[in-house]
């Protein structure tokens, strides 16, 4: 698989790139890069409402992304957005503002990414909505008892499927079941799970699911919101402009009835075409066995790091992502990342856009190693070897 990713040939400071920052963004296989290249070199045109050949090809390319999303995730509605963040903001504006009233409650968890917190804080302020945060326990799981206590009277549950800091996979089936029993809708932040699992949105029963292409081998600048028909029908337009309207007059406008209603303006055409290829590429990956392989590597890495005296934040359960967040007892994390970069190891440090979770863990950041399918166990071993050298020379 590695030879399909041109960037893996890259050297950093004379050493081969070891890319361990996959939870931030993944690399792209040639099929994805080439498809966008081909689009710009051969078929570039604006979509919809045009007769000429290029416009037809561009429209077909753009809409093929929607079809591929629906088929991969078993969804009836796929709205194309600029990413997870815009998808969640879309729910807040298009569904939240139209369906929530003063005094309603929304449930979040302490494990959420900022992108699944800030939009709700903004809405809460505007509409006087109560936000209830489900706490994270010592064992790094959600306190489901407190969730069940908090659900009473809540209209919406926003939950991250897999934590980008811990890799912990939340019990979303149970969360959906409890939410449904209490008449609440569920928004799943699948930014980290869509790349690592085969998700059946229809079967799962959530109402909204947000994720980004760039974290699953697709291009930057594009993502999606899957929506059930019921929830879709409750959504009011968010952004206004071309493509989302049916008619416009100076007296008022009428809107499209399908997903385009929420896709104002010229859409992300090249990006959709690239993402389509990434989705097809993923369809051909044996995700279950690849996931098990990299999770095993992550477990081994966690064990090694613990033995070296690091504090590791993660449990690496069966469905958890292959993410290892850790801290050195005294060394500054950015310094570690810097020293790792000197030999080509790309890791991320900082708050990973999840400050409330770090507040709960009483830390301000971690060093995060996050693996993807093109990573090898050899890379992980060489990481540990070099990490030992760093500790010897710099700690």
């Amino acid at each position, binding site marked *: 698989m590695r030879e399909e990713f041109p960037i893996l040939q890259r050297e950093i400071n004379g050493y081969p790139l070891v890319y361990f920052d996959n939870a931030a963004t993944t690399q792209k296989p040639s099929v994805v890069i080439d498809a966008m290249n081909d689009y710009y070199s051969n078929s570039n045109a604006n979509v919809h409402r045009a*007769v000429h050949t290029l*416009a037809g090809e561009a*429209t077909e390319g753009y809409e093929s992304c929607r079809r591929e999303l629906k088929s991969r995730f078993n969804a009836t509605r796929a709205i194309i957005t600029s990413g997870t963040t815009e998808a969640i903001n879309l729910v807040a504006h298009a569904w939240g503002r139209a369906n929530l009233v003063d005094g309603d409650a929304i449930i979040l968890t302490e494990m959420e990414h900022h992108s699944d917190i800030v939009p709700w804080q903004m809405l809460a302020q505007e509409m006087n909505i109560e936000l209830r945060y489900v706490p994270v326990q010592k064992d790094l799981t959600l306190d489901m008892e407190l969730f069940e206590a908090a659900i009473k009277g809540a209209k919406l549950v926003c939950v991250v499927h897999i934590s980008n800091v811990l890799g912990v996979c939340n019990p979303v089936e149970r969360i959906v079941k409890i939410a449904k029993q209490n008449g609440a809708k569920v928004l799943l932040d699948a930014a980290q799970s869509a790349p690592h699992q085969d998700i059946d949105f229809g079967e799962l029963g959530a109402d909204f699911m947000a994720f980004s292409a760039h974290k699953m081998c697709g291009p930057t600048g594009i993502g999606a919101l899957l929506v059930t028909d019921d929830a879709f029908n409750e959504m009011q337009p968010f952004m206004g402009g071309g493509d989302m309207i049916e008619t416009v007059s100076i007296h008022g406008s009428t809107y499209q009835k399908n997903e385009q209603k929420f896709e104002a303006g010229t859409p992300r055409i090249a990006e959709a075409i690239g993402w389509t290829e990434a989705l097809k590429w993923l369809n051909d990956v044996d995700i279950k066995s690849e996931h098990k392989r990299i999770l095993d590597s992550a477990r081994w890495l966690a064990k090694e790091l613990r033995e070296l005296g690091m504090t590791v934040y993660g449990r690496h359960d069966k469905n958890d992502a292959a993410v290892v967040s850790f801290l050195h007892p005294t060394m500054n994390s950015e310094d570690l990342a810097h020293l790792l970069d000197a030999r080509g190891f790309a890791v991320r440090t900082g708050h990973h856009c999840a400050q409330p979770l770090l507040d709960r863990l009483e830390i301000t950041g971690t060093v995060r190693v996050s693996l993807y399918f093109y990573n090898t166990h050899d890379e992980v071993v060489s990481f540990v070897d070099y990490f030992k050298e760093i500790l010897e020379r710099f700690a």
Partner: protein
Amino acid sequence: MTYSEELTELIEEFQEIDDKMERLEMVFDLADEVNLLPIDQWTDATRVNGCQSEAHVKVEIIDSNVRFYSGADSKLVQGLMGILTMAIDNGDANVVLTLTPDFATEMGILNSLSPSRSNGFRNMFDKVMNEIKTQM
């Protein structure tokens, strides 16, 4: 599948033409073949969705005999309607229902058209077939 004599002839006629422009000229000419559905009878019920221009169709079945009325503000679209007219008008409903849009592909007209126009043709075809089914 086997087509009526008239349709078979039409398919052959189209297949003989190499030049896309000439093929389009023929489609234009066939616009006259429709049983015209006058504009004042265009309604939401007769509208073919997904066409860029206004396209309207209506079906009547008398003694299992199909009568197909149509009209469009695009002559090209009306030409496609003319082709469909030659394929199904005055045909036996049960026979007509065995038809698939493949005949248009065989004629080579669908790939002479932009995707939006050939989608339009498919939408029209589906709508007409559905109407026939409901009326039987």
